[in-house]
């Protein structure tokens, strides 16, 4: 009895388009990769694979969260001072940019499933463009920091006038963490760009919507990481 229930849960899909009906799956046709029987099956594996990968990515940034938390206990004053000196308005605008881009790509996935290919493609490329805006703003911020004399490793003129313990640590982690995040943004843009191209020129059939979903889910994770980096570096 138990077995049967499990199987049902595994193969019968919910109403949501994430899991198409089994009949649909047969219509979609055979899998393109060796170990799977159906494309539906393969899509699920790909999605699970992406999520497991994202779990791994989250732990990568988890190291920064642990460091930031610990150093905040050790250098409460220094961190407060550094946060106040940060480019809050630019950083906050960047948060808004990423939130908008996430919305765009989520809507893109939605409309692609409905078959509105062009709109979906346009939204994907809007997302890529917003990613570019994010990176541009980020570079502007770096430029401002360098102009002020804030360099990673506690180097630069700014530190001559500011010597609260913890400032050097804050800025080094800031540069390393946001730099790593910017690398993820870049990878996400490339990923979305490739999928977006095949959406636009029609080479991505609806049955392969999961490829767009994978890129979108990756992009959302980049957003989620930033949602936490933003308050830690800019707000308080």
């Amino acid at each position, binding site marked *: 009895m138990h077995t049967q229930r499990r199987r049902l849960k595994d193969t019968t899909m919910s109403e949501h388009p994430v899991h198409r009906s089994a009949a649909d799956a047969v219509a979609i046709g055979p899998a393109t990769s060796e*170990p799977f*029987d159906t494309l539906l099956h393969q899509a699920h594996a790909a999605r699970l694979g992406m999520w497991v990968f994202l779990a*791994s990515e989250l732990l990568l940034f988890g190291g920064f969260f*642990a460091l930031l938390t610990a150093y905040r206990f050790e250098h409460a004053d220094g961190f407060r001072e550094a946060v106040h000196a940060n480019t809050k308005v630019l950083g906050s605008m960047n948060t808004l940019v990423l939130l908008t881009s996430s919305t765009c790509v989520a809507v893109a996935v939605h409309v692609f499933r409905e078959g509105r290919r062009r709109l979906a493609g346009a939204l994907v490329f809007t997302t890529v463009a917003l990613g570019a805006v994010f990176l541009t703003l980020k570079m502007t911020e770096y430029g401002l920091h360098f102009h002020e004399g804030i360099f990673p490793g*506690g180097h630069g003129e700014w530190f001559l006038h500011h010597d609260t*313990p913890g400032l050097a640590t804050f800025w080094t*982690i800031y540069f*390393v963490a946001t730099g790593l995040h910017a690398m993820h943004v870049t990878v996400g843009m490339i990923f979305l760009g490739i999928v977006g191209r095949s959406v636009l020129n029609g080479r991505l059939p609806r049955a392969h919507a999961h490829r767009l979903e994978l890129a979108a889910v990756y992009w959302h994770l980049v957003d989620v990481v930033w949602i936490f980096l933003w308050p830690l570096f800019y707000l308080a």
Partner: protein
Amino acid sequence: MTATATDLDVTAAPVPTAAPTSAKPSSYLTDGTTVRSWLLTTDHKRIALLYFVSVSFFLFLGGILALALRLEHLTPGPTIMSAYTYNRVFTLHGVIMVFLFLIPSIPATFGNFLLPIMIGAKDLAFPRINLLSWYIYLAGAALLIWAMINGGLDTGWTFYTPYSAHSPSAVVPAVLGVFIVGWSSILTGLNFIVSVHTLRARGLRLMKMPLFVWAIYSTSIIQVLATPVLGLSMVLVAIDAGLGWGIFDPSRGGDPVLFQHLFWFYSHPAVYIMILPAMGVVSEVIPTFARKVPYSYEAIAYSALGIAFTGFLTWGHHMFTAGISAVDAGAFGILSMMVAVFSAIKVFTWVATLYKGSISLTTPLAYVFVFLFLFVFGGMTGVAVASTSLDLHWHDTYFVVAHFHFIMVGGALTAFLAGLHYWFPKVTGRMYGERLGLVACVLVFAGFFVTFFPQFLLGNAGMPRRYYYYSPEHQPLHVISTIGALGLGAALLLILGYLGWALVYGEKAPDNPWGSRSYEWLTRSPPPTHNFDATPRFALGPYDYTRPDEDAHAHAEAPAQGHDHV
């Protein structure tokens, strides 16, 4: 349970036997023999063999270095190398053994070979990523070795800052090598997790999987969730050493103890990456040679998950003397005891499984008995070290060295050898000689014990690890240890010799030489490229020894036909 058309067939009705195979059936070994067909293969079995060759090479290399270290310690002062060289050699030994041998040893070889077969799949979920992970491993290993030759590395495998930030050796390429090897480990783990969730054959419930799959699955969770933190800490060390930004540099407000937190958050669970697959091997070998249903399948499966989980809670016990707070030390101390409980449950279940069995003392089982003894000994000394006050005396002494060698050599390497003998017929299609196997097993045990037991006593006597000069009164114990190490080395060479001989001249292995019920024995030896000639039906559990062989086999075989669509 109900049997339906779409569900698992558990009816006892006999099924027609598959047509007898032709005289020389093709196998994954004969299916393409060019070098290219090996280097570009996506067959998990071939990738497993590629991994096997690589990790064996690094075991050999690490072993040579270990012998060099032991020979150096024949006298309290300089024997065959200088302190400068000694520090590089012990670092090299540690880095190679941990990152290039132990971590990939069982998961990437036996796990890769057997996991898809054991769940009735044709391959892993992402075959190309599987091949990619081997190349990433090779790239990382090459960078590491390059660093070791060009500048060497003298930080110890733990890379503690600020020493690693100041060390004149090639820290940056070495830690980047470790970083790269880490990605290979993450991809392997990811592949296993997805395969277990999506590629199980019809009717193969999670709780009907062979226990080895549970062990590999639990290992994969650790690989996926802990390795990125190692990656991050290696990147931060590279930044500190290469660019001098001083994230952990106290002169800029950094805290070197935080590096240790990051490092051990990976490197303690990494111990379970090494030992959990070993436990998986034990869980397969004991039921087969005792012809016995495990005393408690659930206990073994759940305790694997339990070890994987609690493994994340215990890293701080490496840091009792490092200057962490007493509160944290207390918390980590008691959390460490949880792991011991889960491990002990496994040991009890294994031993209880033997009760009223029909035990045949073959080489794999002999290794498992060695494992049990050494693992209990090594594990209990772990409990001792986790008892916080004792660690103040033992930390960073030879006691700790002996403790983790009992787990990693006595545990992981012994189980690796058990698995090597157990699955040798399946992988190669040949049988090894049982008599030499048992002799080598006894030699391995003796060599190991003589090497590492004296090191417990050295630790008690207060000899710190990573010491080039030591007090002359410790010399006798060191000499005994060195003699043991030479014996262990000779035993390993003996194994290499007779297995190499068996590979060519050994008699042909039957499909199921041990009469096992586990699923990998349902296919041919060596298996065909797609693992099964026909879609298998896993009608019986993998440990059902309550029926005789004929009956069990009747359930396992299925008519040759196309596979069902899920």
